[in-house]
């Protein structure tokens, strides 16, 4: 059994895991997790509570030792945990000074720009800042360290809708300028359209799906029509719902085949990320136990 967390410089891949597993006592929080995240992507890590998202990020960040498998990340990794930690008695300026001392690479301008953008007072003790402002200080620290891979655990939680949009836009601007790879976990799936371009879906510590978001969604379709036990086209049924005399199927279409034409009383519509994630979560709720 190998238990390695190593940093390797690869240009094409930002993260690669193989057979990754992490156990808390007898319960596996993460199992058989294998995926490759190409560099420069903005990946959304999605899954129900307790699916293993935080465990996966902590292992990738090197904060937890895996019990089996390997995780390889390229370059420098920055990780902002869900509680957005700051020192209560440090001011934002102190936090940046600390960042400058503790990191081998540090971009003060970039970190300051983030704080300015969100109008965070530099001199005030972090303990006296609002929760949202503390989060901005934690983000500024992570951005200042110029990571190759930036991991954010629930970055948008506790932010108001406007701040969520602004943080997202600012983050994507940083990605565009620096070419870093982002892995962010979130429950706010509906806001990911156009933001994330890669999806990692976890359920019960296992990777359910992973890949380019557009390609993934293009392979799925929603059919609604008269009550039926079988869908109107060939494919794998991800979710089937029957209400009264109406049936709805979320279907994964077979690869490398033209899109089927469904005639008659059936209507089809494209699958949104939210449709897909909800269907997958519902399907696995009572699925493979841990």
């Amino acid at each position, binding site marked *: 059994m190998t238990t390695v967390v190593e940093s390797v410089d690869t240009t094409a891949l930002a993260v690669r895991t193989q057979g990754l597993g992490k156990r808390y006592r007898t319960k596996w929080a993460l199992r058989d997790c294998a995926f490759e995240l190409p560099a*420069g*992507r*903005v990946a959304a890590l999605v899954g129900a509570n307790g699916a293993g998202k935080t465990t996966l990020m902590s292992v990738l960040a090197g904060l937890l030792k895996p019990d089996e498998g390997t995780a390889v990340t390229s370059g420098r990794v920055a990780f902002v945990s869900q509680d957005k930690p700051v020192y209560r008695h440090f001011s934002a300026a102190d936090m940046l000074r600390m960042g400058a001392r503790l990191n081998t690479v540090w971009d003060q301008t970039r970190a300051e720009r983030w704080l300015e953008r969100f109008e965070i007072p530099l001199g005030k003790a972090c303990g006296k800042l609002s929760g949202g402002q503390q989060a901005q200080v934690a983000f500024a620290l992570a951005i200042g360290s110029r990571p190759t891979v930036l991991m954010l655990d629930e970055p948008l939680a506790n932010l108001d809708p406007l701040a969520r*949009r602004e943080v*997202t*836009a600012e983050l*994507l*601007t940083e*990605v*565009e*300028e620096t070419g870093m790879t982002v892995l962010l976990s979130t429950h706010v799936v*509906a*806001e*990911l*359209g*156009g*933001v*994330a*371009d890669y999806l990692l879906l976890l359920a019960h510590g296992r990777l359910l799906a992973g890949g380019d*978001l*557009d390609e993934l*969604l*293009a392979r799925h379709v*929603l059919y609604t029509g008269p009550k039926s036990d079988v869908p109107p086209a060939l494919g794998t049924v991800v979710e089937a719902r029957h209400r009264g005399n109406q049936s709805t199927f979320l279907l994964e279409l077979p690869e490398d085949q*033209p*899109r*089927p*034409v*469904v*005639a008659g009383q059936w209507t*089809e*519509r*494209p*699958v*949104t990320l*939210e*449709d897909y994630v909800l269907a997958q979560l519902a399907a696995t709720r009572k699925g493979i136990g841990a």
Partner: protein
Amino acid sequence: MEFRIDRASGLPAYLQLVRQVREALRLGWLVPGDRLPTVRDVVASSGVNANTVLKAYRELELSGLVEARQGSGTFVKAALGSGDPEVMAALRTRFAEWVRAAREAGLDTEDIDALVRSVLTEGEGEAVA
């Protein structure tokens, strides 16, 4: 121009951008020679991933509507005309007749919409197959 992403739409974000550029061309907001906003501008103003914007611009380039000029940006190359005005007028007249016939048959706007949509989808399916 400013892009917006409808996150409830099943249409991939990059295709939404493509559609918005095409719409701007059709409506004459964009004309040949105009420069599309830089990827950075779009990212900052609409909160869309740079990869998404690049994918949209590549798609527009492939369809010959825009061209990327090294170092200076992406420019509109062709107009998206709505076709020959005479042909358009003829099509409109025939379509108006068809709508009148549909109404006489008792179809309301929603019925007509559903019918048109189903024919359009059928066409798409055939085009692929």
